[in-house]
């Protein structure tokens, strides 16, 4: 086996894990599978691209590559701006679509179908604004560095992996060490009781959208940095994201990340041993196997 598979799988898996984190949070707290989450990934990438381009045109020095990386300071700054803008987008979608449906106490299937509609609309808007041609944060070529054991990785890949891990740790700490995290876990378990004890459920829902969209943005920028940016990128990631969220156990932060890495590694292994054309089937197999064998996921509780 080529050991490079492990690095490729880990890098791809870290992005899947970040995206799955958003899915698992919205699923556990808003109680529906949000099929528009992939579009927040794509929108995050395009918003960062647009913000980075705007910054680069005003301050050309910010566009010049920094150190060993393929991008300049414009991208990290644009990332933070895009996280905020993507959050606003998610809150807007909730305000226009999901919020009114929640108020009408619509069933889960209505919310899921609405998320399909939102996904189509958001993707079409992206194609309308940015066209369907692939875009890139940087076209600079990078030389992969030898890491030992026959494994090589570009500085961008290593940075992306590190950033993903930092965000996962931050979200885990938010959920386990803060009052908002406590409220989120309470709403996730019993929304009516959470209201009874004084949890502002509306605030929790807004934070979940902001957090999910922010993580989606980071995943989108990471995926865009390592591969390319396309309006379809969120759709392509959707199945691996759901596979990771369910395999990890709905609501589990470490579970989403670990399962994201499992999905990423499995896809990389499938490419090497079975064939690249089977890559997309791997997430499906993992999803079905998890639902059949351990529906509560790796880190979920059977109750």
């Amino acid at each position, binding site marked *: 086996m080529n050991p490079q598979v492990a690095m490729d799988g880990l890098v791809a898996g870290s992005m899947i894990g970040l995206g799955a984190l958003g899915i698992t949070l919205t699923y556990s707290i808003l109680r529906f599978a949000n099929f528009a989450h992939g579009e927040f990934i794509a929108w995050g990438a395009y918003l960062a691209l647009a913000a980075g381009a705007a910054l680069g045109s005003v301050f050309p020095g910010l566009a010049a590559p920094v150190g060993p990386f393929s991008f300049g300071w414009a991208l990290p700054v644009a990332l933070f701006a895009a996280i905020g803008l993507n959050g606003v987008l998610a809150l807007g979608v909730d305000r226009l679509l999901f919020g009114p449906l929640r108020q009408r106490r619509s069933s889960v299937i209505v919310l899921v179908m609405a998320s399909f509609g939102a996904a189509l609309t958001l993707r079409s808007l992206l194609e309308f604004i940015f066209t369907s041609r692939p875009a890139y944060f940087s076209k600079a070529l990078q030389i992969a560095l030898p890491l030992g054991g026959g494994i090589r990785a570009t500085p961008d890949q290593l940075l992306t992996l590190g950033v993903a891990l930092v965000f996962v740790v931050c979200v885990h700490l938010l959920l386990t060490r803060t009052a908002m995290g406590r409220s989120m*876990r309470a709403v996730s378990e019993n929304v009516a009781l959470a209201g009874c004890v004084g949890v502002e459920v509306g605030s929790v829902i807004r934070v979940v959208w902001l957090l999910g969209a922010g993580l989606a943005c980071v995943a989108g920028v990471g995926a865009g940095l390592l591969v390319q940016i396309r309006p379809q990128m969120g759709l392509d990631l959707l199945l691996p994201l759901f596979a990771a969220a369910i395999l990890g156990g709905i609501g589990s932060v470490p579970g989403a990340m670990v399962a994201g890495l499992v999905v990423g590694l499995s896809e990389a292994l499938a490419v090497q041993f079975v064939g690249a054309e089977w890559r997309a089937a791997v997430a499906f197999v993992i999803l079905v196997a998890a639902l059949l064998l351990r529906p509560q996921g790796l880190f979920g509780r059977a109750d």
Partner: protein
Amino acid sequence: MTGPSPPVLSTSGLVAGYERDLPIVRGVDLTVRPGELVVILGPNGAGKSTLVKSVAGLVPVFAGRISLDGSDITAIPAQRRIRHGLAFVPQTENIFATLSIRDNLLLAADILPKDSRKSRLDSIYGMFPDLAERPGRRAGALSGGQRQMLAIARALLVEPSLLILDEPSAGLSPKIVAEVFARLAAINASGVTIVLVEQNVRAALSIADRGVILVEGMLRHSGDAKALGADPLIAELYLGAPRPGGASVA
């Protein structure tokens, strides 16, 4: 000369339920004075739980008014009523099973001013030493009685002016029920006003000051708890007790 103290809770003409065309609570006028322990009794389906849930903000109110300490709270959402001094302990699923004991309590403490949280938490741990033994323990691992104590402790943490409990004895063994009622009597003796919905009529009346009887969503009778328990006609008509030497009313 001073008049009677103003009520902690008063409802006037309260109509509530899940469907506007089919209200379950139909025009209830209820007044609860400070320091009272009032038990709401009645046959199954009388609307007892719906009444207290509507007071807690969990069931839509179609008409009427709910006042807490003189303030109209009818339109205030459930999550804000606790800030007005109303704490509600539901009948089932009244704790967060996946959270620790400490986190269950901290959820309530989060609405208190920061400088008073620790002292309130210490005070609650003093009142409920069982909970203080292993505060990091998952609440779902507690026994039925301990869960009920945790739910009551969490409600008391915010020092409510009114504590409402919906069937706190449900699903508990007689020994634990006795403990829960003894604890509720002690809490009431410390000055907390309590409204209790209960199927365990005798036990509830033994600690209550007053009992009210709800039938088909309407308040049919209100009176001293001891007298209510001793009234054979009331017991037979509304509390399911058999008529001595005769058939029970269907």
